[in-house]
């Protein structure tokens, strides 16, 4: 029996020890009428060999693509060591480190992870992961509302990832929390500071500040954080961790720094994998730590005074505090946290900065190449990090479809989520894109759009 070690002798001896005649008898407390018979719709078992063949065939059918999509999930090179170590049985098949003495491996990794994330965001403390960036934003909103006590209103720029805004809404709305949208400046693509005036009286509990924003554009983070504090609100940073190798960290935004930072840790060594598992990270000021959701690891000493690590501040959590917990989260994204820790250790500050610089430079090169095509122009004037919105002269969806025929994933179509932008396409070139890749995309897009290239004399977009 696959994965079941019992021999017939074992089963017989065990039934005898229990004092029943058959396994069926062990289910005798289940009302007879409820007992299931055959599982309709469950296919028969496949051997490992057969399922391996099926999965290899399906993977081969899906094939590989030249990818220029970012939009919240980024194709980065992952050093081979990351997953060869993360999938070691001792990490892979352990669970939440409830027994600290039997889990120092996981616990120390989490402590190191917390330290790295705190340092990356320049905030005091970190938890040990949430599900993903979007749900981490939702948890940050809940946390801010708890901390603020009087307001249930949170300002969220329209430049925050549309899915993140949806997720935040799904998660917070049942608690009567209102998310108010701040518009963006159609020129720069950044949040419109001048629009903030109208929220002055709204007494928000928090202001969410994305950096870079969904358009890839850098936000006026100092001003936004400052405005939040001036209006009695917390500043919640929603950041890309790769970008933080170069960009001013949330803890240094404005005179006081952001209060909470969240983001998706996927860029830190986690494969795209069709959308998950990723990890949500969250760091904050020390005085907010008791409002944090999720596991937190702390250093302590053992009987003999040796340094060790344990889960701490558990009184915030559901398994202790139940209905009064800071969140319902229990199982988190532990293994992804391990991978992120390995990734950051393998890259170090110099490596991460190199990745960030390469992403930035490649995206600029991509934008430069694509805007040489007649009718293609950058949609915004704001400085970008590693994504850029282009305006096309024709509808986006058919263009992307045509590119797929050449196995190119041309970017993220914004027409649904931002109809006001017209034929807008969000593209991204991480460090994994080469000059050849960019040239290939340029040539194919040119062909698809079907207009002759802009002559060198005309100014670029």
């Amino acid at each position, binding site marked *: 029996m696959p994965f079941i070690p019992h021999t017939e002798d074992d089963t017989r001896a065990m039934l005898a020890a229990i004092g029943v005649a058959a396994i069926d008898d062990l289910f005798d407390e289940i009302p007879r009428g409820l007992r*299931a018979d055959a599982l309709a*719709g469950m296919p028969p078992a496949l051997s490992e060999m057969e399922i391996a063949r099926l999965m290899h065939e399906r993977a081969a059918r899906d094939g590989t693509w030249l990818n220029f999509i970012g939009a*919240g999930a980024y194709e980065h090179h992952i050093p081979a060591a990351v997953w060869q170590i993360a999938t070691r049985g001792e990490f892979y098949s352990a669970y939440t480190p409830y027994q600290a003495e039997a889990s120092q491996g996981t616990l120390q990794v989490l402590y190191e992870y917390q330290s790295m994330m705190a340092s990356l965001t320049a905030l005091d403390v970190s938890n040990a992961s949430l599900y993903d960036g979007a749900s981490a934003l939702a948890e940050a909103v809940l946390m801010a509302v708890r901390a603020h006590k009087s307001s249930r209103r949170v300002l969220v720029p329209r430049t925050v990832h549309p899915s993140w805004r949806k*997720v935040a809404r799904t998660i917070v709305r049942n608690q009567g929390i209102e998310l108010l949208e701040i518009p963006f400046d159609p020129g720069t693509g950044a949040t419109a500071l001048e629009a903030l005036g109208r929220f002055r009286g709204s007494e928000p509990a928090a202001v969410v500040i994305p950096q870079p924003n969904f358009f890839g554009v850098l936000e006026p983070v100092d001003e936004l954080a400052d405005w939040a504090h001036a209006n009695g609100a917390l500043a919640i940073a929603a950041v890309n961790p790769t970008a933080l190798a170069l960009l001013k960290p949330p803890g240094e935004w404005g005179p006081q720094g952001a209060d909470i930072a969240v983001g998706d840790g996927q860029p830190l060594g986690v*494969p795209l994998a069709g959308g*998950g598992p990723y990890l949500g990270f969250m760091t904050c000021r020390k005085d907010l730590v008791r409002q944090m959701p999720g596991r937190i690891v702390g*250093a302590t*000493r053992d009987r003999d005074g040796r340094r060790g690590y*344990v889960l701490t501040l558990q009184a915030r959590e559901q398994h202790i505090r139940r209905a009064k917990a800071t969140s319902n989260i229990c199982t988190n994204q532990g293994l992804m946290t391990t991978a992120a820790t390995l990734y950051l*250790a393998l890259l170090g500050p110099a490596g991460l900065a190199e990745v960030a610089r390469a992403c930035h430079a490649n995206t600029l090169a991509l934008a430069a190449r694509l805007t040489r095509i007649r009718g293609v122009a950058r949609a915004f004037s704001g400085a970008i990090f590693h994504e850029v919105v282009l305006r096309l002269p024709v509808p986006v969806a058919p263009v992307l479809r045509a590119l797929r025929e050449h196995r190119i994933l041309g970017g993220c179509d914004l027409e649904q989520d931002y109809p006001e932008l017209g034929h807008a396409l969000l593209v991204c070139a991480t460090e994994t894109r080469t000059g050849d890749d960019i040239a290939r995309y340029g040539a194919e897009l040119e062909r698809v759009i079907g207009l002759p290239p802009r002559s060198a004399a005309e100014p670029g977009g």
Partner: protein
Amino acid sequence: MLIFERSRPGRRGAVRVPVRPGNVAEIPRSQLRARPPGLPEVSELDAVRHYTGLSQRNFSIDTHFYPLGSCTMKYNPRACNALAMLPQFLARHPGAPADTGQGFLACLFELQEMLKSVTGMAQVSLAPMAGAQGEFAGVAMIRAYHDSRGDAARDEILVPDAAHGTNPASAVMCGYRVREIPTDADGNVDVAALGSAVGPRTAGLMLTNPSTLGVFERHIVGIGNIVHGAGGLLYYDGANLNAILGRVKPGDMGFDVIHINLHKTFSTPHGGGGPGAGPVGVTAALAPFLPLPVIGQAGAGFRLLDERDAPLTIGRLGAHLGNAGVLLRAYVYMRMLGAAGMRRVADYSTLNANYLMAELRRAGFQIAFPGRRATHEFVVTLKLLRDKTGVTAMDVAKRLLDKGCHAPTAYFPQLVPESLLIEPTETESKETLDAFVAAMKEILEEARRDPQLVKGAPHATPLGRLDEARAARDLDLTWRPG
């Protein structure tokens, strides 16, 4: 030693990335970081050696018996890992259209169908990223259902006092008040108390069956009638599905909404705390409210359903489509088991638990619900031992580590004093169970003979017992350079 303590300024790992010239061209100075982040500067060998060494400081299923109750720490077949990590699957961007990933989507669609089959529910969404998120989604659907009927006065969720902490916490996250229902002496829901608690404010009842007490709720049909009779819905916490797989379907028990922990019943790895996956299943009446995305059919192929397909959805729970890699692992596992294998899971996990319970009883341990069958797990109470010797459930748990076993879940369920919740799972052999019984017997003797030995445990782990109080008092949550 921390990785930071191995760091030397200027040392670099092997990771190099070619950077085009003119690199930070477009970023204004005011936006740039003044000081690099305090990440460690180590060589690739340093990192590999450091983390390989740390891994060896863990107990895990691959190295130790791990009978952690409620967590279903069964063997995680290595094929599931290998096949979910095929390069094409790993490289798939979540924003890539459905036509570029029909192989991938076929797996997820079939997973939905298989989950419908084993649970008896009408429709399934794979979106929730863990059990607790499944609970949130389930309760949110209950709310959406009542709202859609204009039945807005229901503001209470009933939860048995034996329930897992996530149940009340999830209900509160959905804006409900939680009302606890007591448990009777046999470990069943106190039906009388339930009867007097239900009413027009009842939105629903959350129930684990088998319960966290390791027993099957025998009055489940009656309970369902009471709740439904009052206009409430019945929520199934599927964390314990392992015990009844192929034997009883939640749908047949009368549940309206369920979640399933793929990282338990369907053996995806626990990863030192996660990731998991908590798909939700519902009856037809609740299907319109399922969280997105759901995998739908499109001609001969598959696509992700969105808000246009499901305008009544409670919404989205994550930026993409859930923990896809976990879903693939569960898919592979379920295909390898097939229909017959599903039922064997219930059979042998139940056999193992009942055998272990019988043998521990024989060894002198007190079973919390001695009149009941064990399901896939059972509760031992060490109250008598503690009263006699001062040795607590925590002490026994720590001493087990010295004997090469991970400890069972201690102090949960909370309503049993000095409880150990023991779940051997079906993948452990009789020899392993016998060795566990022998270890428990030794500890019992040690507790009587030399309680300090047990109270001072563990002795054989790399560190001795860690001071949790100190950790919470003198908070040290991040490394700071000396």
